[in-house]
C-alpha cells in the first residue's frame, strides 16, 4: 500500500504538470481546453522523434546516464520538445481559438474546437507512428532501488519527481516575481480590468498558452519515460486533468497541484481493489463528487 501511495505521487506529479497548465488556461481564457491531454501526447512524440530520429542522426551520444534509462539525447530533447509544444499551443490559439474569441463564439464552440484539435493531434500521431505502443529505448532494463517500507522505486521516477518539483518552483517564481507573471495573474483575476490598465492581454494569452503547452509537453515526455507512449495517452489523461483542476479550484495553480496528487494517489490505490483499467472511472467519480459537494474546489477558485 505504501508503494502504491508512492506510485500515486509519481503519477500525480505528472498529472500536475498538465493540470497546472490547464488551470492557468481555464483561469485566464475561461474555456475548457479539451486538447490539453493531447498536448502531452504531442510532447511525448516530438521527443520520440528527436531521440530516435533527429538527435540520432546528429550523432549525439546516448549512453544511459548513471542509473537512469536515458542519456544526453533525452536531456537535450526536454527543452526542444517543450519549446515545440509551446509553439504548437500558441499556433492552435492563433488559428482556432483567437478567431472564435474575436467572433464572441461562446464557451461551448471554443471547447468544441479544442475537441477537434485534440482529435487532429491524435490522428497526426497515428498517421506518423501508428497505433502501437512505443518506448524511448526499447528493451532497456530498468533497475529498481529499494527504499524502506519495501517500496521499490526506479531512478527514473526519482528524476521525474525532481523535475516536476523544479518546474513547479520555477513557474511559481515566474508568476510571483516577473512582470509577465504578475500580468498573467492580473488577467486571470479580471481580464477586462487588465485591458483597461493597459496590459497587453494578447501577449498574456500567448504566454499562457506557451507555458501551459510547455508544461504539458514535459508531462508527456516524463510519462513516456516512466510508462510508454501510445497515441491515446493524452486523451486518457483528460479525466484526471480536469478532475484535478476542478478539485483544486479553477485558476488556482497550487490547488491544481494538490488536486493532481490526490488524483494520482487515488488512482493508484484503487488498483488494490479494482482493475487498473478502471482508473479513469475513479478520477471521474471523484470529479462528480466534488462538483456536487463543493464545485469551487478545495481552495476555491472560480466556480
Amino acid at each position, binding site marked *: 500500500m505504501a508503494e502504491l501511495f508512492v506510485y500515486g505521487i509519481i503519477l500525480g506529479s505528472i498529472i500536475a504538470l498538465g493540470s497546472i497548465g490547464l488551470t492557468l488556461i481555464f483561469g485566464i481564457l475561461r474555456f475548457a481546453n479539451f486538447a490539453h491531454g493531447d498536448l502531452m501526447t504531442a510532447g511525448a512524440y516530438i521527443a520520440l522523434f528527436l531521440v530516435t530520429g533527429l538527435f540520432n542522426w546528429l550523432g549525439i551520444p546516448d549512453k544511459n546516464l548513471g542509473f537512469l534509462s536515458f542519456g544526453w539525447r533525452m536531456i537535450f530533447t526536454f527543452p526542444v520538445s517543450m519549446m515545440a509544444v509551446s509553439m504548437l499551443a500558441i499556433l492552435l490559439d492563433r488559428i482556432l481559438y483567437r478567431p472564435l474569441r474575436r467572433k464572441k463564439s461562446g464557451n461551448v464552440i471554443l471547447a468544441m474546437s479544442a475537441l477537434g484539435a485534440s482529435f487532429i493531434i491524435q490522428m497526426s500521431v497515428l498517421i506518423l507512428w501508428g497505433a502501437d505502443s512505443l518506448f524511448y529505448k526499447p528493451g532497456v532494463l530498468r533497475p529498481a532501488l529499494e527504499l524502506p517500507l519495501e517500496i521499490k522505486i526506479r531512478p527514473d521516477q526519482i528524476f521525474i519527481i525532481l523535475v516536476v518539483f523544479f518546474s513547479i518552483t520555477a513557474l511559481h517564481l515566474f508568476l510571483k516575481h516577473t512582470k509577465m507573471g504578475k500580468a498573467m*495573474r492580473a488577467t486571470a*483575476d479580471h481580464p*477586462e*480590468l*487588465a485591458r483597461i490598465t*493597459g496590459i497587453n492581454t494578447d501577449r498574456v494569452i500567448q504566454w499562457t498558452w506557451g507555458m501551459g503547452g510547455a508544461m504539458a509537453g514535459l508531462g508527456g515526455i516524463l510519462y513516456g519515460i516512466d510508462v510508454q507512449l501510445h497515441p491515446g495517452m493524452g486523451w486518457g489523461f483528460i479525466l484526471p486533468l480536469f478532475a484535478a483542476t476542478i478539485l483544486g479550484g479553477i485558476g488556482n495553480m497550487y490547488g491544481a497541484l494538490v488536486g493532481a496528487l490526490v488524483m494520482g494517489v487515488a488512482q493508484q490505490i484503487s488498483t488494490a481493489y479494482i482493475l487498473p483499467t478502471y482508473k479513469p472511472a475513479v478520477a471521474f467519480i471523484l470529479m462528480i463528487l466534488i462538483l456536487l459537494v463543493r464545485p469551487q474546489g478545495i481552495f476555491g477558485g472560480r466556480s
Partner: protein
Amino acid sequence: MSLLEVIDVTAGYGETDILDNVSIELEPEEIVSMVGPNGAGKSTLLKTIFGLLTPKKGSIKLQNEEITGFSPDRIVRKGMGYVPQVENVFPSLTVHENLEMGAFIRADDFRDKLDEIYALFPLLLKKRTEKVGKLSGGMKQMVAMGRALMLDPKVLLLDEPTASLAPILVGMLFEKIVEINRTGVAMIIVEQNARETLRVSHRGYVLAMGRKVFEGSGLDLLKDEKIGKLYLGG
C-alpha cells in the same frame, strides 16, 4: 480647445440606445461631475469615452485628436485613465502589485511615481504587501484610483467612486479627489452622491434618460432647488 470633447454622441448596447446626442466638455485640470437618476446613461458615457463602447454617432476628441472608436489600450496610452465601479482592482495581487500593473506600459523607472501614490494614500503604504481582495471597500477604492494614476493621466474617469464606501469615508475620498486634482489631473466623476460631488466640482452636468438636461457650475447646480428635487434626490 477643451482637453476632452464629447460631441453629439449616441451610443448603446445592441439595438437599444442609452445615450442620445450627448455633448460635454472637460477643460484641463477641471473637476466635472455627472449626476442624475439611475439608468440615465452616466456610466455608459464614461465607458464610451474610454473606448469600451463604440458610439453609433458623434465623435470624441482628446486634445483635439479624434479618439472615437479607439480601443481602451490605445486610449490609455493617450493619457486617459478609467476607474470602473466594480471589479476595479486585482484581488489576488497585493497592493504593491496592483500599482505595478498600473504602470505596465511605462518603460521608465516608475519608483518615483510609486512614492507619490503612497504619499497620497499613506494607508496603502502600510498594507502594500497584502492581497487586495482582503482589504476593506475604502482601501480597495484607494488602490483602484492609485492604479489609474500610475500612468500620470491628464484625464481621469471615475465611475461612482463612493458606491461601495461607508458614509464616513465619503468625505475623505472627496478630499483625496481634490488633492489629486491639484496635481493637475482633470476628472470626470459620475456619482449617485450628487451633493458631495458637486461641492468639489468646477462644473457639472445632469443626465436623464440618456440626454443632457442641465449644465452649469458645481455651485449653481447644487443651489438650484428644482434640480435638487427632480434629480438629486431632494
